[in-house]
C-alpha cells in the first residue's frame, strides 16, 4: 500500500506559534518586572541612607539636591541627605486639587453629554472632549506659561501680597493655582470619556423602570445611572490620578522651580505660591544622572511615583470588587 500520510504539514503549526507568542508575552512581563526591580535597586541607596526621614520635612530640598550632586562629582564621601516632604506636599496639593475639581466637572459634563444635551450640543461637545484629551502636555505647558502665569503674576497677585513673602519666595505667577488649573483641564477629558462610557453601559431596563415609576429624568440619571456607573467612575478617577501624579513636563513649566511647600495657613495667598511636585523634579534635575548619589535620589523619586500609581490601581480594584455585592459592577 502506498503511504498516504501527507508529506507536508502547516509550516506554522499552532503549537509553534503559541510558543512564540507565549515567549513574547513572557518577555513583556519580564520587562515590566525588570523595570520595577531596576528602579527600586537604583533607588535603594537613597532610601537606606535616609530611612523614613526621606519622606519627611527638613531643610531646603533644592540645597539638598545640589549638595548630593556635588558630592557625587567630587568623588569623595557621597552625601545622600534628602527630605522630600516639600515635593510630596506639592504633589498632594496639586494632584488632589486637580482630581477633585476634575471629578466634579467631568461627572456633570458626562451626564450632560449622555443624557441632557440637545443633539447639536453633544455633536459639538463630544469632539471637544476628544480634542482636549489629545493635546500634548507640552502645549498645555506652553499656553500655561505664556498666558496663565503672566496673568496670575501681573493681575491677580497684588503688590502687598508679593511684598509680604519677599525674601522667602517670589510670587511671579508660577504657582499652585496655575498648575492645578491646567492639570484639571488635562485630566478632565479623560474622565469624561470613561464616565460617559460607563453611563452608556447602564442597563436601559433600570432607567426605563425608574421613569415608569414617575421619577423624573434628572433623578433617574443620577440615582440609578450614575450609581450603576460607579465602577467606571472609580476606574476613571484612578486613571486620572495616575496620569496626574506622573505628569512631569507641563508641571515643570508651570508650577515653579523651587522646592517650597505652600502652607495653607498663610491664607489665600498660598495658591499663588510656587512649588514643585515629584515628577517635574526628576525632569528639572535630569542632568544630574551622572553623579551616583544624585542618580540614586532621582530613582528614589521615581520609585515613589511607581509605588503610588500601583497603590491607586489596587485601591480602585478593591473598591470595584466591593461594589459587586449590589450588582453595580
Amino acid at each position, binding site marked *: 500500500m502506498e503511504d498516504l500520510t501527507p508529506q507536508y504539514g502547516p509550516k506554522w503549526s499552532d503549537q509553534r506559534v503559541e510558543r512564540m507568542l507565549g515567549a513574547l508575552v513572557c518577555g513583556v512581563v519580564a520587562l515590566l518586572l525588570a523595570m520595577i526591580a531596576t528602579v527600586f535597586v537604583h533607588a535603594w541607596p537613597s532610601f537606606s541612607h535616609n530611612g523614613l526621614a526621606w519622606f519627611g520635612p527638613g531643610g531646603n530640598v533644592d540645597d539638598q539636591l545640589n549638595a548630593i550632586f556635588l558630592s557625587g562629582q567630587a568623588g569623595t564621601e557621597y552625601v545622600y541627605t534628602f527630605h522630600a516632604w516639600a515635593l510630596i506636599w506639592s504633589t498632594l496639593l496639586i494632584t488632589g486639587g486637580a482630581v477633585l475639581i476634575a471629578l466634579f466637572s467631568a461627572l456633570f459634563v458626562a451626564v450632560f453629554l449622555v443624557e441632557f*444635551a440637545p443633539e447639536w450640543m453633544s455633536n459639538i461637545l463630544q469632539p471637544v472632549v476628544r480634542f482636549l484629551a489629545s493635546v500634548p502636555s507640552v*502645549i498645555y505647558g*506652553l499656553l500655561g506659561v505664556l498666558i496663565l502665569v503672566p496673568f496670575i503674576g501681573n493681575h491677580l497677585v497684588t503688590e502687598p501680597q508679593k511684598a509680604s513673602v519677599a525674601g522667602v519666595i517670589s510670587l511671579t505667577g508660577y504657582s499652585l493655582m496655575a498648575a492645578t488649573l491646567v492639570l484639571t483641564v488635562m485630566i478632565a477629558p479623560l474622565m469624561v470619556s470613561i464616565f460617559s462610557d460607563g453611563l452608556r453601559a447602564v442597563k436601559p431596563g433600570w432607567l426605563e423602570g425608574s421613569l415608569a415609576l414617575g421619577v423624573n429624568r434628572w433623578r433617574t440619571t443620577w440615582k440609578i445611572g450614575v450609581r450603576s456607573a460607579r465602577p467606571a467612575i472609580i476606574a476613571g478617577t484612578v486613571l486620572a490620578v*495616575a496620569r496626574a501624579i506622573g505628569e512631569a513636563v507641563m508641571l*515643570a*513649566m508651570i508650577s515653579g522651580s523651587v522646592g517650597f511647600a505652600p502652607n495653607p495657613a498663610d491664607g489665600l495667598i498660598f495658591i499663588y505660591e510656587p512649588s514643585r511636585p515629584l515628577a517635574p523634579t526628576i525632569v528639572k534635575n535630569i*542632568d544630574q544622572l551622572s553623579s551616583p548619589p544624585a542618580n540614586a535620589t532621582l530613582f528614589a523619586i521615581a520609585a515613589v511615583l511607581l509605588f503610588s500609581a500601583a497603590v491607586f490601581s489596587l485601591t480602585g480594584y478593591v473598591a470595584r470588587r466591593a461594589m459587586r455585592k449590589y450588582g453595580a459592577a
Partner: protein
Amino acid sequence: MLLLKDRKDAVEGTAAWALVDRIGLAICWFLGLLFCAIAVMIVVYLLVQGIKFLRPEMLWTPAAAGFSETETGGFSDALVGTLIVAVLGISLALPAGVAIAVWLVEYGRPAALARVTESTIEAIAGIPSIVLALFGTVIFSSTALGFLSRTTQGIVFGRSFFAAGAMLSLVALPLIVASVREGLNSIPRHVREASYAVGKTKAATTRRILLPTCRPQVATGAMLGLGRIIGDTAIIVVLLGATQNFAPVEGAPFPLNFLRGAGTTLTNFVYEASPTGNLNQPQKAYAAAFVLLLMVLALNAAVDVVHRRARKVGTWSH
C-alpha cells in the same frame, strides 16, 4: 441619549422638577459650555500665534545660533526628529501589540499567565513616562546595548533615537493591545469555527481571516499610539539628548549614524524654546507648537475617518 432616544427637545418637562434638579441642569450647561470655550481658546490662540510666527522656512531650516529670534533659523531638525521617533516607536509597538493581543484572545493558556499579562499591559499604561525614561537610561547605558548609541572613551552615552524610540513604543503598546483585542473579541465565535472546520490552523485563521477583519481596529490603535508618541516629551528630554540639531555618530554608515546619535523633536523643541527651557524663544515655540497640534489633529481626524468607514461595512449577525 439613554432615555430620550433621538429626542430633539431635551428640556421637555423640566418645569415640574425641584429647584435642586434645575440648578443641577444649569451647572451641566455651564460646565459643558466652559469646556467648549477652553477648547476654542486653545485652538484660536495657537492658530493666531502660530500663523503670526510660523514662517515656511522654519520647516526646512535647522536651528542655528543667533541673537534674535529671526536669526536663529527654524526647527526642521525637530520636525524630522518627530517623524523618526514616531516611525521607530510604532514599528516596534505595532507588531508586538498585535501579537500580544492575538495571544490574549486566541490562545491565552495558562489562564494565570493571561491574567498576569493583562495586568502587565494595564500597569505599563499606568507608568508615568518619566519613569520609563529613567529605566531607559539604565538599559541603554549598559555596554551590551552600546551599539544603539554613541560611545565615547568607553562610556556609553545611552541617549539616541533608538533609545527614545524603544521606550516610546512602550507608551503606545497598551493602546494598540486594547484596540486590537476589542476588534478580535467582536468577531463572533462561529466565524472561527467555520475556518477550523475546513482544517485551517489557528495561526492561519488569525492571519488570513481575523486580522484582516480587524484592520480598522489595528489602524485606530496605531494612530492613537502615534498620537501619544509624538505628544510625549519626558522620554524625549531624557533619552534623546539635549541638542537642537541632529548630532550623528561619527564613523557609522547612514542612516545608522543619525539613529544612533542625539537629536530633538517638536515636543522637546517647544519645551526648550519656552521660558522654562534654555532658548527662551517664545515665537518659535508657538510656531512649533502650532505644527505639533496640526499633526495631532490630523491623526484624530484620521481615526474618525477610519471609524466612519468601518461602520459602513456590514458585520456578522451574532
